[in-house]
């Protein structure tokens, strides 16, 4: 890796997530997209990359392998099963890997929460959890660090048009991955995650409700902590906003909800679920860039 230069980035998976990432990488001062890999010659994502003058390959993993010497970091926006093969290929190649699939591989990366510098290096393998995880964990983390929480529930509702085939096929992995990440990052054992898909037109903006239970909860204190954390989240993602203030819904349980819209780079603004995970993935890549090529 050359010092002081932008990290050379490949995006594998030229669907919605991958194409939106392409726009975000192009805006970054620390990253430069040098390769976009898909699986079909007629992929609209590859066509866009081509028009931007970026090298493309329709050959999937083989296309990535052929160019591996010119890459410092790979964003994987393929599928859970494909990710396992890609991770295997990149092992000990001095290429960082950012996992945007539901495969349970890599260290969880959640801005404001996972601050372990040892995770960040040229060979990093980071797991971006899920949209529900990226939305809820920063908030649940600040609450669990300051209050005694016994159980947590997270219910995200997303627009049907923002839920691709992979999401629909991987609902089970979505639930398992999000529950595991919440539990690991907050220390709360009793965690339940749900995902609801709503087909209304015009599309609804991603909406996440959280229910936290504990013996000594106070609305005002929760409100202060949530406000503080949303302010911190808004530095990198201005599209997260509190839509329902913390309110007791039963004796020991508080409900609050946030809405997450998208920045509208490639995907429509209602799909905050896709945007928030990409915004966090860019942050992850930039932190790797800063650590290896300061």
């Amino acid at each position, binding site marked *: 890796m050359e010092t002081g230069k932008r990290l050379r980035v490949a995006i594998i998976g030229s669907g919605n997530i991958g194409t939106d990432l392409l726009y975000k990488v192009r805006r970054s001062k620390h990253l430069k997209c040098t390769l976009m890999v898909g699986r079909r010659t007629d992929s609209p994502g590859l066509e866009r990359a081509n028009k931007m003058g970026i090298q493309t390959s329709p050959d999937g993993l083989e296309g990535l392998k052929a160019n591996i010497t010119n890459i410092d970091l790979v964003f994987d926006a393929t599928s859970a099963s494909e990710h396992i093969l890609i991770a295997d290929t990149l092992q000990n190649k001095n290429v960082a890997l950012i996992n945007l699939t539901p495969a349970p591989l890599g260290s969880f990366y959640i801005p404001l929460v996972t601050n372990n510098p040892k995770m960040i290096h040229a060979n990093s393998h980071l797991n971006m959890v899920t949209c529900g995880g990226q939305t809820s964990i920063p908030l649940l983390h600040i609450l669990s660090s300051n209050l005694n929480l016994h159980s947590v529930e997270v219910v995200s509702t997303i627009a049907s048009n923002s839920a691709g085939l992979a999401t629909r*096929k991987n609902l089970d992995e979505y639930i398992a991955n999000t529950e595991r990440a919440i539990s690991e990052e907050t220390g709360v054992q009793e965690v339940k995650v749900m995902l609801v898909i709503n087909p209304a037109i015009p599309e609804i903006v991603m909406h996440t*409700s959280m229910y936290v239970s504990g013996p000594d909860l106070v609305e005002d204190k929760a409100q202060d902590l949530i406000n503080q954390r949303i302010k911190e989240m808004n530095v990198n993602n201005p599209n997260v906003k509190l839509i329902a203030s913390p309110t007791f819904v039963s004796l020991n349980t508080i409900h609050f909800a946030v809405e997450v819209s998208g920045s509208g780079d490639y995907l429509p603004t209602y799909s905050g679920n896709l945007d928030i995970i990409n915004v966090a993935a860019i942050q992850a890549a930039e932190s790797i860039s800063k650590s290896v090529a300061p």
Partner: protein
Amino acid sequence: MTMMIKKDSKHVLISDATLRDGNHAVSHGITEENIRNYSGWADSAGADWIEVGHGNGLGASSFHIGKAAVSDEVALTTARGSIKRASLSVHVMPGIASIGRDINRAIDLGVEVFRIASHCTEANTTLRYLEYVREQERQAVGVLMMSHMASAIEFLHQAKLMQDAGAEALMLMDSAGTLSPIEIKERFEILQAELEIPTGIHAHNNLGYATANTIVAVEAGARIVDACIAGFGAGAGNAQIELVIPLLYDSNHVEFEGIEYFEVANKALESFATTPISNSLTIATGRAGLFSGYLKPIQRVAKEFNVSPFELINELGKRKVVAGQEDMVLEVAKYLTQSE
């Protein structure tokens, strides 16, 4: 013993949903004792399938939708112990229930019929669940909920996705009690002509059509009927089991008159079931096309926030909420308070 009906048979399969849909009517408060007694009564009264669980199915007990008085594990174990003849069935909504967390345990506890449900336009969220249940050699039934929100043709397309994934039957749920007998007839005629698998009807009574819709669906080809004791179910309740069995007997679709269910109805009403109420609230949710399960939360939240339940229903209808969005009842109530 698991039974499945043939599409071209005259015989109709009776699915008793009292211990699942009825849970909506009592805020998921059906007890272990209720389950033990009722599943035994329904079993000997002639039900083919007995559905048990939280109103929104496996894994749904939560602050979000409502905590059930009994865990899935206890409910299923209890019912299993009382049922000798019928098949034990569960409602499963992918996204709320997961395979790893919920379906595997239900298989271990002896559930025979898995009714995998989605909103009527989102069938592709159920495909892997249907395939998985088939692989485990349990009965997989596709369920499309809130059916009034898809056109008859779109509905057929979604049903075919489920059929292709291995669903052995397809249930049409009129979850809001919104469809009329004419619409039901049209839909079942199309399904009957285009699907290879048998179909079933799950009616709600918000607009007074539960019995009519059930009978019309059967005449148009439906071969599975969901019904509850005294109509005990979400919103204005479901088709009344002790009423539809005699009607189906008269038209030679079932071989028993269902007399035993009269006695069961009395015992159930004395111990835990309530007679569903048809009033302006249930009519308003039916007209607005709102999921019947929202009736209780709407009543509770409207009172808590001192807002008109009708305004709440109207606004929720405008936002086209689907099953599983209980948080919106709370948020819309807050929104109405602030905008006043």
